[in-house]
């Protein structure tokens, strides 16, 4: 192909009536993140061909960085289902202006999660046994099923966006398909929300059911430990915060206002109340666990937070800095409307939920259970790190492409008129 064609094609693909950075600049960034992506892909192939000895995981850390990354991205991707839930089920119509981006972020998060899982399992070529030989009592089975199904839903939600690309839209079939999918999107969104409630919860259940691991173990109702509900709740609270954070980050990078303040404000407010209620539940859960559940097994709270690296401070970080503080900011109008505090709140909420997922994976592994053991410490290998960064690079690339060529932000043209 003639290289002169590239700018022409680029122009043809861009949505009408919006300003985009010059192609060379775009290409430069694509190259940078592409290189990072390739580094991750290289590490990924190392893990596949040489096996998991490429990681620093060991028999004490069967679950490590990857599983944390999985749990974290799924929690952060929770913005998609919860925004969808609010928009399509509850009927918060304003959210249509941010739902596209929420879906895109969700799609990135979930596809990343699946990719990481595919690297994480020891025998990827027979990983489908999880479906075929499903054990319905396992939280991981539920996770696998709901995750895959919901990924399907997210794909369905993302497809119409792709189809709305100026060139694709010209194909009648695709135009009609996008149109029809929009028509019944509420049904998909409802299914997605249903699936999400379960798999977010099941991810919480992953640690919550481990009665051999007192740090993770929680009592609960029926087959569901409290963490089941806490995880869904925290994902619903913090997922939208991540959506807001990425939206605001995109605005900073593009130097444009993309979503109207009232939309952000609404989402932030709902998040705030979700977060506030979540953190209360979380505190109650922690107190009950620390005073009833674990003493019964012969442990004290101090035992679990005597980690030589961060001790009790991680609990403070998770609950106070990552929960209470952002909740307070987000439920107050002034807090939400001040750009700085809003930034602080969403970042803290994102950190808070990530730390929660961190302790529920890594701390569970690290805590000594037998009285004659000591703390297990772990540092990921470069291959683990690279494969964890891989989805970040992939996400950035997909956001860049989607933003450039798809009408992600319906209010963009209105907010940024071209003279």
């Amino acid at each position, binding site marked *: 192909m003639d290289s002169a064609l590239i700018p022409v094609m680029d122009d043809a693909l861009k949505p009408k009536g919006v300003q985009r950075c010059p192609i060379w600049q775009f290409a430069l960034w694509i190259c940078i993140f592409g290189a990072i992506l390739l580094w991750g892909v290289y590490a990924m192939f190392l893990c596949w061909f040489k096996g998991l000895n490429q990681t620093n995981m060991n028999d004490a850390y069967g679950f490590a960085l990857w599983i944390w990354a999985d749990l974290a991205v799924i929690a952060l991707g929770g913005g998609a289902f919860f925004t969808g839930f609010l928009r399509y089920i509850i009927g918060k119509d304003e959210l249509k202006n941010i739902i596209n981006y929420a879906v895109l972020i969700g799609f990135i998060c979930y596809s990343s999660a699946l990719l990481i899982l595919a690297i994480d399992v020891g025998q990827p070529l027979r990983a489908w046994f999880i479906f075929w030989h499903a054990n319905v*009592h396992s939280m991981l089975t539920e996770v696998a099923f709901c995750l895959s199904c919901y990924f399907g839903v997210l794909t369905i939600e993302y497809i119409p966006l792709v189809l709305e690309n100026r060139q694709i839209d010209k*194909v009648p079939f695709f135009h009609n398909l996008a149109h029809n999918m929009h028509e019944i999107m509420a049904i998909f969104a409802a299914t997605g929300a249903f699936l999400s409630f379960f798999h977010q919860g099941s991810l919480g259940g992953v640690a919550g059911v481990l009665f051999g691991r007192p740090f993770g173990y929680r009592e609960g109702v029926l087959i569901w430990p409290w963490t089941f509900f806490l995880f869904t709740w925290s994902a619903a609270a913090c997922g939208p915060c991540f959506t807001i954070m990425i939206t605001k980050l995109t605005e900073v990078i593009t130097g444009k206002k993309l979503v109207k303040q009232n939309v952000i404000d609404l989402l932030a407010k709902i998040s705030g109340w979700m977060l506030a209620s979540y953190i209360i539940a979380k505190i109650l859960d922690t107190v009950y666990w620390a005073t009833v559940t674990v003493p019964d097994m012969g442990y004290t709270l101090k035992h679990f937070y005597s980690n030589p690296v961060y001790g009790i401070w991680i609990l403070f970080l998770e609950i106070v800095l990552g929960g209470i503080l952002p909740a307070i900011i987000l439920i107050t109008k002034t807090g939400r409307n001040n750009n700085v505090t809003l930034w602080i709140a969403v970042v803290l909420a994102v950190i808070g939920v990530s730390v929660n997922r961190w302790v529920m994976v890594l701390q569970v592994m690290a805590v000594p259970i037998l009285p004659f053991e000591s703390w297990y410490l772990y540092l990921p290998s470069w291959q683990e790190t690279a494969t964890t960064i891989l989805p970040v690079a992939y996400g950035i690339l997909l956001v860049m492409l989607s933003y450039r060529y798809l009408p992600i932000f319906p209010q963009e043209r209105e907010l940024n008129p071209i003279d």
Partner: protein
Amino acid sequence: MSKLDDKKTDQKGQEDGVRGFIILFFIIGLFASLIVGWMIFPSLLYSKKKQPIDFNHVLHVEAVDQGCESCHYIREDGSFSGVPKLAQCVDCHEEVQGEDPEEAKFVNEYVAEGKEVPWLVYSRQPDCVFFSHVTHTKMAEMDCATCHGAIGESEHSKIYEQNRISGYSRDIWGKNIAGFKKNTWDRMKMDDCSECHVKNHVRQASVQTKKGGCFVCHK
């Protein structure tokens, strides 16, 4: 820019023709791949190997007095002898007995050299499988033919078909590509074992599946 724009098509007739064409292509693709999937692929999937010696079961069954167990017996420790070793055959085949060139080949190439015959075992299970012949033949009083078919009535060794990917015999991994099964010896996968175990309530003590535990059939 214009290159990328769809050409306007005004003539309705032409449009209809294109549509028909589209459907035709769809059908071509469909059938071609069905033929590949159902007919070509299965024949490519298996390599066909001849046994080193064409063995005549009928002849041997006539010559021995204990049927299958004359050669394929349960040892004192309960293990199954499987395919006879050279030492068993040598009792009769020290010298060439008959006219059969296969026998001559056996005596000259293997007996004389003291080399074991690399028989290809049609019903060899994967290494992870534990199967106890004594349980089935002695305790459950099953006949060999129930699972292996009338192999004792064969005059020639059939072709051994080996899956090129997994390396296993087609007899245990499924004669029929669609998974349909007429005889026990058409397929001997886990579900086939389980089917009979479930029917007969054999050690259905698993907590997870209420069927047999892993170690009933695995090792």
